[in-house]
């Protein structure tokens, strides 16, 4: 074990934690503005999970159908089931066209139309003129848009010479004597050595936490590390009851089958061969919002119209599409189907079922990317020195349900914006604070994981086993459909998981690439997030977006048009109003959501 008594210190103007699209867009901006930045990532940058995004990025370019940012804004607010903050959504949609063109300038190999402009496909929940005809708003690089964007952003960072700390794990935020965030403790995964990276500006871009559920589309690295750090630092998480179950994951395995498949004309069918989305969304059918489609599939299966020997999936059929649409626009999907299902979608339908995909909630921030937390009087105050962007943040542009194509947009828009906010702060004052860092909490945490199993213990518990059991508890207790009894049961089971987490010991105490220790740190984050999710979901006695309560089936705007804030201390909940006042556009009034 490397020393945990004292740590070497390096100082930077700003730290960016996480090298996905959000973090790399931010670091690019900060380097361009001349600042000394450390980019910290627990994996080599192009392994970050942005790489797996498939379908595309939304912007009202109007290359295929007429479009306006105002329509994009309307669709996003409606898609969010009116929980999204309208000022933030307005900002994101206004920025979208410019930010996508900028990505094109960075080299992203977008697919092209005959006139040479960026190809745009139809995606769920997109309309022209505030709810009329289907829009084509999703800019795509075949079905590998995330890969194309992530690699291009990495390449641009190489061009500018960004300082990367690859395979460094951020363990915890560090506060100075004034209680301000002033850096982070990191572990070099290669040799297990710890180091303090000190800075007046720490930007979290650590991505999602889909590993909290058993069946998910997420990479194994998506363990919500930034969220765990924020909870331990005493700040809240927002809207953690809202998890997107993507309608079309590979059945029983979870790999993502992009919404682009339906955007290009794919149809969902049940065991009777019925194109069942006609029943649930008569107007837009298979291109309804993701929460709507996921629920429809779950209902079809629950009512016995699922396919296969266990009647537990539905079919996604693209065999009627011309072969060149599949080979040119959906090559990655074809690849995944062949590899994991042994099915060629040119001929046979893909077996799909909803799978945990995206976390709408996260670390509460304002539009500038600054983390905010309520003071004792309930007023939202900026947390000095701390910023969050992308999936780990909740700004909130996705509300209760994210539209496909809006997450890639979210990461680059707020990646750039947060960097500009930090730049302005650095221009105003660039002095390292002198007051010492409080290292006690993190030292206690590191010490805890040095504990060894009692050699007489019969069959000791393991980090892996606790994680597996946690994932099962969450899948059963907080899945697509929820009610009070199942969630209460999940809470009791979580208490058991928490007790096991406190007792479990490592078996490997080596320093070089100790993945068991890494998994233990990650597990602490996952358990904290599971509590945030279950507590928030139990409190919200309504159905809204992806949060579907069997015992409270209606949306309740009088009681629940508000954001949930969860604090780790005593599992306390607070609430704050939804922003309904965009700066330029008139407010979009909540109304029944029909597709």
């Amino acid at each position, binding site marked *: 074990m490397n020393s945990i008594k004292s740590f070497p210190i390096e100082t930077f103007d700003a730290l960016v934690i996480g090298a996905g699209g959000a973090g790399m867009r931010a670091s690019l901006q900060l380097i361009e503005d001349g600042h000394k930045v450390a980019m910290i990532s627990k994996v080599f940058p192009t392994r970050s999970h942005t790489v797996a995004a498939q379908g595309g990025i939304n912007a009202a370019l109007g290359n295929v159908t007429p479009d306006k940012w105002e329509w994009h804004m309307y669709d996003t607010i409606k898609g969010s089931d009116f929980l999204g903050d309208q000022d933030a959504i307005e900002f994101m949609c206004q920025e979208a066209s410019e930010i996508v063109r900028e990505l094109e300038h*960075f*080299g992203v190999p977008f*697919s092209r139309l005959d006139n040479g402009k960026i190809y745009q496909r139809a995606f769920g929940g997109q309309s022209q003129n505030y709810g009329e005809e289907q829009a084509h708003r999703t800019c795509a690089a075949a079905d590998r848009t995330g890969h194309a964007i992530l690699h291009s952003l990495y390449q641009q960072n190489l061009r500018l010479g960004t300082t990367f700390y690859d395979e460094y794990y951020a363990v915890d935020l560090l506060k100075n004597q004034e209680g301000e965030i002033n850096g982070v403790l990191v572990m070099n995964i290669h040799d297990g050595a710890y180091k303090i990276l000190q800075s007046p500006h720490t930007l979290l871009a650590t991505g999602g936490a889909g590993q909290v559920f058993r069946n998910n589309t997420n990479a194994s690295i998506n363990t919500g590390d930034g969220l765990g750090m924020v909870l331990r630092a005493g700040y809240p998480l927002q809207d953690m009851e809202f998890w997107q179950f993507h309608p079309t994951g590979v059945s029983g395995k979870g790999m993502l089958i992009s919404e682009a498949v339906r955007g290009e004309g794919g149809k969902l069918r049940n065991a009777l061969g019925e194109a069942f989305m006609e029943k649930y969304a008569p107007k837009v059918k298979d291109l309804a919002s993701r929460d709507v489609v996921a629920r429809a599939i779950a209902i079809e299966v629950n009512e016995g119209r699922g396919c296969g020997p266990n009647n537990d999936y539905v079919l996604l059929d693209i065999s009627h599409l011309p072969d060149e649409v599949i080979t040119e626009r959906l090559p990655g999907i074809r690849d995944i189907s062949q590899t994991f299902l042994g099915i060629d979608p040119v001929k046979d339908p893909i077996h799909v079922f909803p799978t945990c995909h995206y976390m709408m909630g996260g670390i509460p921030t304002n539009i500038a990317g600054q983390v905010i937390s309520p003071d004792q009087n309930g007023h939202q105050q900026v947390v000095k020195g701390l910023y969050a962007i992308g999936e780990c943040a909740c700004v909130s542009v996705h509300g209760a349900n994210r539209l496909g194509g809006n997450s890639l947009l979210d990461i680059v828009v707020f990646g750039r914006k947060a960097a500009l906010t930090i730049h302005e702060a650095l221009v105003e004052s660039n002095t390292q604070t002198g007051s010492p860092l409080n290292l006690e909490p993190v030292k206690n945490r590191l010490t805890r994981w040095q504990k060894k199993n009692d050699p007489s213990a019969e069959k000791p518990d393991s980090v892996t086993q606790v994680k597996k059991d946690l994932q099962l508890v969450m899948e059963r207790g907080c899945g697509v459909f929820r009610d009070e009894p199942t969630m209460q049961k999940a809470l009791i089971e979580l208490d058991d998981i928490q007790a096991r987490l406190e007792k479990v010991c490592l078996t490997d105490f*080596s320093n070089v690439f100790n*993945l068991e220790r890494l998994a233990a740190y990650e597990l602490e984050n996952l358990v904290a997030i599971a509590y945030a999710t279950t507590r928030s979901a139990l409190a919200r006695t309504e159905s809204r977006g992806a949060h579907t309560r069997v015992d409270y089936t209606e949306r309740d705007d009088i009681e629940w048009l508000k954001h949930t804030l969860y604090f780790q201390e005593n599992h306390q909940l607070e609430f704050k109003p939804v922003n309904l006042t965009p700066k330029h556009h008139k407010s979009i009034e909540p109304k029944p959501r029909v597709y």
Partner: protein
Amino acid sequence: MKFIISRYNPETDQAPYDQTFDLDNALLAADSMLLDALHLLREQDPSLGYRSSCQEGVCGSDGMNVNGKNRLSCVTSLSELGQTVTLKPLPSLPIIKDLIIDMELFYKQYKDVNPFLEAEPLDLEHEHLQSPEDRSKLDGAYECIMCGCCSTSCPSFWWNPDQFAGPAALLAAKRFVVDSRDIKHIDRLKELDSPTKTFRCRHIQNCTDACPKGLNPSRAIQELKSIMVKDL
């Protein structure tokens, strides 16, 4: 199933050695992938070192040598491998631990080909136009996931990983050489026209055989040579 896995922990071992693991077939499904088996083996021995992340063949973390061939464990079906599977780290780069290699030289070669678009500056009101035909020239070149399976299967890279760009870096180089938006076409070709860049390739084609994404770096390098002949 039996797994013979190359183990090495620099803190305790002088040199890598093989360790044999048995895995109960009942734990595996007909369509299990090699990565699923590795996860189960790590439950037996939590110190077993290998990288993995996306588990679906797009992040490029889990390149390893499987029964003598470089592959990604997450998209390698166990059913193809027989009852005994021999796993080694990707060859030719330093081993950090077990199946985890130090890819620094591989990344350095990538960086050295200037793998970023240099286009005519343009205001943010406009996108560079590119015809579908020009865009299609990037197909087969931009999809690389930098797993390293190709370069670490290349004998020319084995001899000189510090000098020879290797197939992955040359594939990236070609992606920018053929991008109609790029304005450094000739400069790029001049840089690549060197004995250690393009011309260290002997057209052995191990790279193409190894690529888990079905790309063809060998052909890309030959195309680079043709472009040089025509444009330089």
